[in-house]
Structures are given as C-alpha cells and as structure tokens.
C-alpha cells in the first residue's frame, strides 16, 4: 500500500517545506489511564482544519519546540469533523513533556503520514477489532469511522484488553460501544481488581474463546508486539487467511516520510509504506526486524 499520491498533502505544506510544522493548540486533555492522556487539538490558524485531510490509521509528527518531535497516530475519526485527537503514553522525554502541557499550549504538528487502513478492503465485511492497551488509539479512529458508516459493514466484534482495569483507555467509548446493539464488545483485563466484574484473560486467549467466524471477515489487530505475535496464530486457527489479518507496525521514526532511514524493515519504510500492513505482506518481508 504505497502512499505515492500526496497531492492532497502538498497543498497543506507550510511554505513548501515538509519539515516545517503547523502550529496547533491543545484544547482539551483527558486522563485515560495513569500513564496515558488524550489531547484534543486544533490548528492555530483555524482555517487549516478545513484543508486538513486524513485517514484512519495515519499518523503525525508532534513536537514541543525545544524538546523534540515524535510520531503519534491520530486517534479521532475523520468522520467527526469537530475532533482532532491524539493519545500519548508516557515513556520518554517528549511523551513526558507532552503530559506536562496544559490546555492552551501551542505545539507543532506535521502530517498526515503513512498509508492508513484500507477501508475499501473492509466494506461489506464482518469486522473483528482486536486491541491491547494503547493499541486502541489507531483502532478507535477506524472503529468510529466504521460506526459512522454503519450500513457499509456487517457484524462488528471488538475485543479489547489491558493489563488492569485502570489501564483501559477510552472508557467512555467502551461504554458507548457496549451499549450499541450492533456491536459485540468484549473487554478483558490481564488481572482484575476488587471492583472488576468483567472478563479476565489475555487478549489472544479471549479472542480464541469469542471465536469470531473468519467467513467474509477481516481482523484488524493493534497492540504491543507481543500481543500481535500471539494474536496472528489464534486468528489463523479460527480460519483467517494472512490476507484477512491487518495490523500496524511501530518502529523508531524521525522524519516520517522515508528520508531519515531508520524505520526500515528490509526494503520497506514503515513511515512511508506502512504503518498498516496485512499479515500476508508481513510474511513476505525480507527481514524479521519488527
């Protein structure tokens, strides 16, 4: 899925310079878990919002001036025009600095980059979403996208898990999807606590128990690489072919546009050719360095 057509994005460049970020303002901050926050943002030049096109699964390079830049996916859906969101887990220097921001802060944003999810492949299909932890961030954009075009898709299963009840992201969305009769929402945690009444078990395990049919289905899995490694075999057991399994890959990135070199897996760049790949594509990778 190469993203060779960037004409839509060219219009959106600042001074014709792809590395020059747009200024965006943090409008709202939501505590998702003890280490994860969602930031609602908008362009400082509000008119830009109208020109800003993105697809579910694409990412941006966000920066705090003086600290640095890092890639995060856009966790809101393009179908919700009033929303631009990204969700950050605190792991290092920039992510910690982002967590220290308050509403009104001005940061840099460039994007959208990457291929995004192949919506045309999902149409008229039963969809199985499998997510772990912060892996729900890119999937959430897609899930809302699908819900907002509900009649284009058939059954929807969502299997989402986190380490503990406190580590579940987007609890407000989980509630919504749980209430939605047209969705089979399954939430699980690795380890419960006193108040947890839901399922306990690792995501791949729970997926095997829920056992969604592979018939005319596509599974989209996002989460820690260890979860993905255990999820693919389960899906295979359920009858999913490599073409029916989709995931996103994560590599260290700097430029986000296939120039700085570091995010390659063999001849591919995750920033340019991904981050969304089918398992069929991944199996054909020259290298196992992901």
């Amino acid at each position: 899925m190469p993203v060779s057509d960037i004409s839509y994005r060219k219009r959106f460049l600042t001074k014709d310079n792809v590395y020059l970020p747009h200024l965006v303002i943090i409008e709202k901050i939501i505590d998702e878990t003890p280490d994860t926050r969602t930031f609602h943002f908008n362009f400082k030049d509000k008119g830009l919002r109208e020109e800003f096109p993105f697809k579910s699964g694409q990412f941006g390079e966000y920066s705090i001036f003086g600290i640095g830049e890092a890639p995060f996916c856009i966790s809101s859906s393009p179908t919700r025009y009033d929303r631009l969101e990204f969700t950050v887990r605190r792991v290092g220097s920039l992510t910690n600095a982002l967590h220290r921001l308050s509403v009104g802060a001005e940061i840099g944003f460039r994007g959208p980059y990457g291929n995004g999810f192949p919506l045309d492949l999902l149409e008229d299909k039963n969809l199985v979403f499998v997510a772990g932890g912060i892996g729900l961030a890119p999937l959430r954009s897609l899930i809302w996208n699908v819900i907002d075009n509900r009649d284009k898709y058939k059954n929807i299963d969502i299997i989402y898990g986190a380490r503990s009840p406190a580590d579940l992201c987007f609890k407000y969305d989980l509630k919504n999807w749980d209430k939605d009769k047209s969705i089979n929402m399954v939430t699980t945690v690795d380890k419960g606590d006193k108040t947890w009444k839901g399922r306990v078990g690792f995501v791949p395990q729970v997926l095997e128990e829920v056992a969604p049919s592979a018939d005319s289905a596509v599974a989209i899995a996002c989460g820690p690489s260890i979860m993905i490694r255990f999820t693919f075999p389960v899906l295979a057991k359920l009858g999913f072919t490599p073409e029916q399994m989709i995931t996103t890959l994560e590599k260290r990135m700097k430029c986000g546009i296939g120039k700085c070199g570091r995010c390659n897996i063999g001849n591919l760049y995750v920033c340019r050719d991904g981050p969304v790949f089918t398992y069929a594509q991944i199996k054909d990778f020259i290298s196992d360095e992901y």
Partner: protein
Amino acid sequence: MNQKISKKDISKLLDELGKEFKVFSPSRESGVTTFAEWDGRDSSFLEWYRNTVISPKAQLQPLYEKMFSFHKDKEGYHLELPPPTDKKLIFGIRPCDAKALTIIDKTFQDTYQDPYYLDKRKNTLLVGLGCTNPYDSCFCTSLGLSPTQSSDVDLMLTDIGDEFLIEAVTDRGMKLIKKTSYLKEVTKTDEAKAEEARRQASSKVTRRLDTKDLAKRLLSSFDDQDFWEKVSNKCISCGICTLLCPTCYCFDISDELVKKEGSRFRSGDSCAFPVYTKMPMENPRLEKWRRVRQKVCHKYEFYPMSFEVIACSGCGRCIRLCPVNWDITQILASLPVKVKA
C-alpha cells in the same frame, strides 16, 4: 569543442568563479581533508589531492544543519526558515562522489521533496576532476564508473600534464565555459594525451566487486546469522564507514533551546549505532550483526530494489578509513549462498 586550462591558472580561475559562486575546493582543515571555501590561498591541493576524507556531499547534506529556528512571544511561537542557499560550485569533485549525489537524489526526491538538500543541489555546480592516482581501496570501475569520466558533473577536467582538458558535460557547464577566462582551444595531441591519461587511470583501479546478481545473493544469504556474526565480529560500531560514506544519508532530528530562542536541526546519523533504532521498550537491531547486515543490504539489496541503483559508488572510504580494516569487497565476495546462473 573541448577546452583546456593551464594548471598555473587554476587559482585565477577559482578567484574568478568566486565572484559568482561560493567555491569549494579540496583543503586540509585541522589535518582532515575536506572541501572548504576557496579563499584565494593557493592551488597546492592539485599536488596532494587524491580524495578527501570528508566527501563533498557535506556541502549538500552537512553533518549539522539548521532546519528552522523558533522563538516565542506573547502571540505564541514563530518559526523561521534559514535564508535561501548561496550559489555554490564544487571544484575537483571525483566521479565517484558526483555519482553518489545522483544516487542519493532518489531518496530526497522520493514522494516528498526534501527542501534543504534539493535547494542546495539545484544551486550547486559540480566541476569534476579525473582521478589519476586512485587508492588501492577504490573500486569505482566495478560499479560502472570511470575514475576520469562522469555524467554526474557539469564540467569534467582531465590531467594532461601541465594542463587540464575541460569537457562540458551539461548545458550549465557549457554556459560556464563560455564566460570563463583563461581557457584555450585544445589540439589533437591534447585529446590523445587525455585519452591516454584516462586509460592509465582506469587500469590503476584494481580492486573488484562482483555485482552480478548481488541483490539476489544477498537476499539468499539474509537469514544466515552465522555468516553475519562472523563478518561483523571485528566491527566496533564507530559509524565512520557510514558517516563518511557519500551515499549514506541517514539523519537524526533534534531541538536545541537557549532561553526562548531555539532551533530544530538535523545531523548525521548511522545505522551502526544501537540507539538508531532504539524504542522505549524494544530495539529491533540491538545485535551488532543485524546492524552490519542492515548497512550492507541497504546499499546492495534494498536500495536497488527501491531505486534501481546500488547505493555505493566504490569510493573506498569505508575500507580506507575503518579503524579495524573491515572490507566490504571481501565480505561481498564471501557471501555464503551462491545463486545458480
């Protein structure tokens, strides 16, 4: 029609060119050979210059480069791009180093235009100087290049004794010749001398790299961990072979902040360093053999897959300058899996 110039007129020529361009020529800076701005000193480089440690690629993609600066006031942040690039002329670039630029152009032009590199590239004239005294680490001829001829420069000079023969390779080069003083018409004898100089130079490049089916051979050796461990054993991951390679272009992006004034800059980076791919939780190329494999395969397997050209011009720096004598030609000659014809 070709022209020629007397060697003793080179200083005057560079002075003249200096009026229109920022001229860069081979120079020794604190003991390291590099291309530095011509300041009218003298043209003694013509005697010692074989090839520089720091390739002229550094004029187009510097090891450190400011991308933009920023400052904050009560209205918020203001970003400012660096001033547009000067018109530059690189005098004396070797065919291998000129080819290297043509190779990395592909990356900087791919999908998104890289404004910093491409602006400089567009505004830089290349005056090539044939290489008559190659090192034993050079293997440009194995990559289809000639040490004395190049289609990657604007003008090409060949040493014919007391003079250089000058060929215009591009229209830009032709235009430059037309307005340059100190040039003379060449004779048949001059042409013959140049031909002989070219022939001799090519025969002095004796190191060979067999590029036939190289990408395929690498592909079939890719999973041979024992082989990669063996050939990476002595490497100390210093990064020299990549940071000084004219076809390596990887970079890092960082911020710098002093009081409220700051800048974002990019700097040379190397796949030889473990931090290059380090993520908070994992590192796909923590092991040295994976990094060495990446370097080799990127040049001779992945780059040709993407851009139909090997990302190496045989300049030999990675052999010459490696502190532990790691030798790419030896390694590629010893690939374990041979592809049957």
